[in-house]
């Protein structure tokens, strides 16, 4: 008995969540912190397996089986609420069966559920350090999360405000709208050219998006080279481009520019050694031919002309014709050796 008292005193200091059991599994001594978890239900005198449900080792159903495995690691759960999980170790000594318990990962809930203080833990227990670390890390995480949120918001607003198409470096649709908005004065001389690539989908589908992106970049380069610095060149959709020609409404000149564009875009491009053949359909609407026409309307008319060009066969250009049917269709001189066959060839691969 003296031995058991000395053992209990020692464990109370070093392991305030201990139990001392007799060989029948009856609880003879309870550590103060462990008893604090069930302040109204003294554990002394009760069976260990009545208070706790053994979750590991699973195979054990009777207390006597545990004694056969000295030093065994235990996972237990209280049989009543709160169902706090504890981990522990069982050691058989001459003065009784000692079960040393600790919270493990359930510590966070336990300090909240049982209003524990640092005095409830042994001086060597890392519980307080763990709690500190969880709080400190949570605070640091929260600061990082806020930073990420602000960066994300800044990124979205920057993208919304951007005027540049990141793939091609051309203006984007938003920038084009701004350019056109400045043309809303009456009697300004300018033209809107709407360009839509032909056979681009085949390039994308057969050679992949990287090839498609490469083609779009080459198209952008051609558009910039074939226009003047005062003209605005924009990519307004997947393979759609708009050029606004400043102070230029002369049909023959616009026609020459459009023909040259089609011609140059039909020149074979190579992506990683494989040919990407495309062409373009073009619709043109000069401002002087439609007096009092708002920029948005002019853009719509260029779009109608483009639609007519597409319908008339690819690699063609068309001016907007207010009288509809008598639209002027022009086929670029090189269109007869257009890329349709090579497009078919690519599909064959």
């Amino acid at each position, binding site marked *: 008995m003296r031995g058991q008292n000395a053992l209990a005193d020692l464990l109370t200091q070093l392991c305030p969540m201990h139990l001392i059991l007799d060989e029948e599994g009856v609880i003879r001594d309870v550590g103060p912190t462990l008893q604090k978890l069930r302040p109204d239900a003294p554990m002394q005198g009760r069976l260990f397996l009545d208070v706790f449900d053994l979750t590991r080792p699973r195979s054990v159903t009777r207390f006597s089986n545990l004694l056969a495995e000295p030093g065994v690691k235990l996972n237990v759960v209280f049989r009543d609420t709160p169902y706090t999980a504890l981990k522990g170790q069982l050691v058989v000594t001459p003065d009784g069966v000692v079960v040393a318990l600790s919270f493990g990962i359930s510590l966070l809930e336990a300090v909240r559920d049982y209003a524990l203080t640092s005095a409830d833990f042994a001086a060597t227990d890392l519980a*307080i350090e763990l709690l*500190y670390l969880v*709080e400190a890390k949570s*605070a640091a995480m929260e600061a*990082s999360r806020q930073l990420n949120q602000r960066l994300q918001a800044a990124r979205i607003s920057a993208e919304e405000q951007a005027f540049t198409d990141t793939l091609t470096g051309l203006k984007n649709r938003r920038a084009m709208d701004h350019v056109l908005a400045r043309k809303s004065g009456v009697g300004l001389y300018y033209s809107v050219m709407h360009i839509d690539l032909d056979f681009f989908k085949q390039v994308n589908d057969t050679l992949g998006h990287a090839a498609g992106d490469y083609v779009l970049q080459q198209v952008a380069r051609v558009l910039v080279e074939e226009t003047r610095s005062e003209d605005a060149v924009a990519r307004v959709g997947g393979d759609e481009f708009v050029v606004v020609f400043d102070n230029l409404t002369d049909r023959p000149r616009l026609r020459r520019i459009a023909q040259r564009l089609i011609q140059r875009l039909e020149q074979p491009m190579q992506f990683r050694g494989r040919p990407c053949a495309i062409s373009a359909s073009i619709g043109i609407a000069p401002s002087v031919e439609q007096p009092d026409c708002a920029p948005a309307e002019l853009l719509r008319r260029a779009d109608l002309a483009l639609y007519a060009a597409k319908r008339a066969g690819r690699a063609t250009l068309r001016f907007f014709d207010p009288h509809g049917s008598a639209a002027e269709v022009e086929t670029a001189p090189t269109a007869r050796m257009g890329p349709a066959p090579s497009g078919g060839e690519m599909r064959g691969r």
Partner: protein
Amino acid sequence: MHGLVNGAIQSFVINTYGRKRWTHVTEAAGLGFCEFEAMLTYDDALTEAVLDALCAELCRARDEVLEDLGTYLVSHPAVEALRRLLRFGGETYVEFLLSLDDLPDRARLAVSDLHLPALELREQGAGRYELCCGPGLPGFGSVMMGILRAMADDYGALVMLDHDGNRDGVEVIVITLIEVAFAKGRVFDLGARAG
């Protein structure tokens, strides 16, 4: 300087003197922005410029302002998380003092690139302690004065503090503990995480 340090100064100025004065300070310091990010690192010169501008704005000496900053960090509800982290240092004010040696390591455990100056507490007997604040963060000793004072209130202890000047870049604070349980102090609930 770590954004957490800059952010602490910003939070102190805004919650003590108002956002308008903080905006003045950032303009006078030529920051070009008025929100420090806690998790970014800034040029040390920016922190210096902010502190200079702040002292000019308040017409007060730097050590006084920094001590107020230390008090703010422990006592203001906006930074309750920090007070809680400090209270993990121990059950009593003396335990807290003894835990200060670990403070820079604890800080680094939470935020790996936050480097605080070394702290060393020397027990002189009869309730007298000397806290040596190592070099690396000029004015840190003054901030610690404020923290020690506010933490004494937090634990309900009665102490006298003296800044004993600068010895080779090491700031020394003399702490005289007059009464451990002078007042009730504030409650520290381990399980109540500060939001």
